[in-house]
């Protein structure tokens, strides 16, 4: 009886030990993945900042006005040439 119990406990012990090894291995992989994603996130943050900067640089009023005036031949509108419509009026 004791012999049987001992064999069972030993098997259980070895099983536990192996599962600990496995769990550590899994963890190492997951941590590594997490780190990769974190660094990817940092890179994306930088890209986002870069894109925001580009948007602001390209959307500069000065540049828009320049292009509108020279390339598109646009002119600012004046109230004299504007027909104003009021909602609900006939």
């Amino acid at each position, binding site marked *: 009886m004791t012999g049987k119990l001992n064999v069972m406990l030993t098997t259980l012990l070895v099983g536990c030990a192996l599962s600990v090894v496995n769990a550590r291995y899994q963890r190492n992989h997951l941590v590594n993945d997490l780190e990769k994603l974190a660094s990817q996130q940092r890179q994306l943050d930088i890209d986002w900042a870069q894109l925001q900067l580009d948007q602001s640089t390209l959307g500069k009023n000065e540049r828009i006005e320049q292009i509108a005036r020279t390339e598109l031949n646009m002119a*600012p509108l004046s109230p004299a040439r504007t027909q104003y419509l009021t909602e609900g009026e006939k």
Partner: protein
Amino acid sequence: MKAGANGSRVAAGKGVAFSKSPVLAVRLPDWRSRVVLFVLFAAFAALAGRALWVQAMDNQFLQKKGASRYMRTEELPATRGKIFDRNGMVLASSLPVKSVSAFTEDIKGTPPEKLRELARLLDMPEADLLKKLASNRSYVYLKRQVEMDVVARIEKLDIDGIDTRKEYKRFYPQGEVMAHIVGFTNVEDVGQEAIELAQQKALAGQPGSRRVIKDRLGRIVEDVGMQREPHDGKDLTLSVDSKLQYIAFNSVKEAVDKFHAKAGAAVVLDVHTGEVLALANWPTYDPNNRAHLTGEQLRNRVITDTFEPGSTLKPFTVALAMDKGLVKPSTLFDTGGGRYSTGGHIIRDTHAHGVIDVSTIIQKSSNIGTTKISEMLSAQEMWEMFTKVGFGQAPRYGFPGAVAGRVRPYKSWRTVAKANMSFGQGISMSLLQLAHAWLIFARDGDIIPLSFQKVTEKPVGQQVISAKTAAQMRTMVESVVGPGGTASQAQVAGYRAGGKTGTAQKVIDGRYSQTHYVGSFAGMVPMSNPRFLIAVMIDDPTGPIHTGGGVAAPTFAALAANALRAANVPPDSTVTDIIIPEHPFEESN
């Protein structure tokens, strides 16, 4: 010696075997074995004790030694917060760059063509590079804040002794247009001017570090824990509107050019929230390229320069008298022939206006009329009014370098000083203070705090004059802009505008200059429901025109027209063609 008969050799010849010789049977004393046993036992005990000590009692040292073999401290970078305008447009943002430096000893054997290529990539003359490398220090910075793509190409050159370190560079996409609001940071990412300086604490990031375990391939396999928590800087959303800012900036720039002025400045406030929507200066600078920066360019004239506002201050004196019930808009005053003597000094008007009412005093900007109204007020009452609207008070805008201006204590006012102050002489303030104070007319007589950051809650105002007085004053300042007023050039097509001009002589070497002026204008649009409060200052116009009505009023009109259009404010006037009188009425000072 002879051999034995049987031919065998026996030791000693007595028949006793060698190994059994009693002579060799040494008797050892008992204590010796015990000593050996004890010594061995003690040695093992010492080993066990030491093991116990090292393993259990004093295990820090060895654990530390062990950890250093596989644990690494990793820097966790923190970026400086971004600055946005009210519509979410980026005004300042940090990107990672690298500094390039060299260990002078290690770089010595580099072939010259590689160094030439390095100099080209670093955008510096080769001679300068060689001079830096010849330095007797062992480590020299070659260039700070080099952009990443350049760094990648430098690293490809594979020069021994080149070292790159990560740092941040601040970019200002709006450049010179926003320079005086946003400011800039130095090479260490520390704010130096304007909002970057004022909000340094909030914007600055706090880099952290953590302990990690790396495997033999350098991959992180365990995060042991934080040493220092990293904190990114906070993002800031300013009250400024890039579109309005651009309009204000352009108007000021054009005006300075057109009137041959030394400098110009404008500020646009939101009447409902007290937000600073635009703050423009000319001359200015490009915060991205600060190689040749002068004090003139850096000066934020709206906030740090004081000037004597002149007639733009008259409405405060008149409003105070109306609020006290001393005069009504229709009360008549005799301004005589344009000369009036008080306290031994002569006050002049440019024209003889004769008997006019209070509204006309404002419309024609009569010094004598304002002086006569101020005679009904006590010095203390006037001083209290000026103090309530913030003149001479240390401003709390949260902006570095903001000046308080100067209002002398009322006890020291002499008769002529009081008269002068009633029309804005002998009292000084910044343009922003003037604009701020004007809010009482644009609003219903209350003053609200100014803000450089976006306001989300309705500000709480402090009543200075009654709503009725404010409304009466609005009618008066609208007449200033109409035909017959001093600021007919401030008319805005399609909108009703109102404001007051001011021309002040500059104080040079303690005297009023006869040739150097500051032309100013403070006004609001649209009058049916004021939305923007705009103040303009043109410093030292040297062309033929130098009055506030001539230089600042048209600048105001251009600014207001574009700002209203940009903000989609519906027009409140049917007048679409502005007719400016051929000889606009000139104010007296």
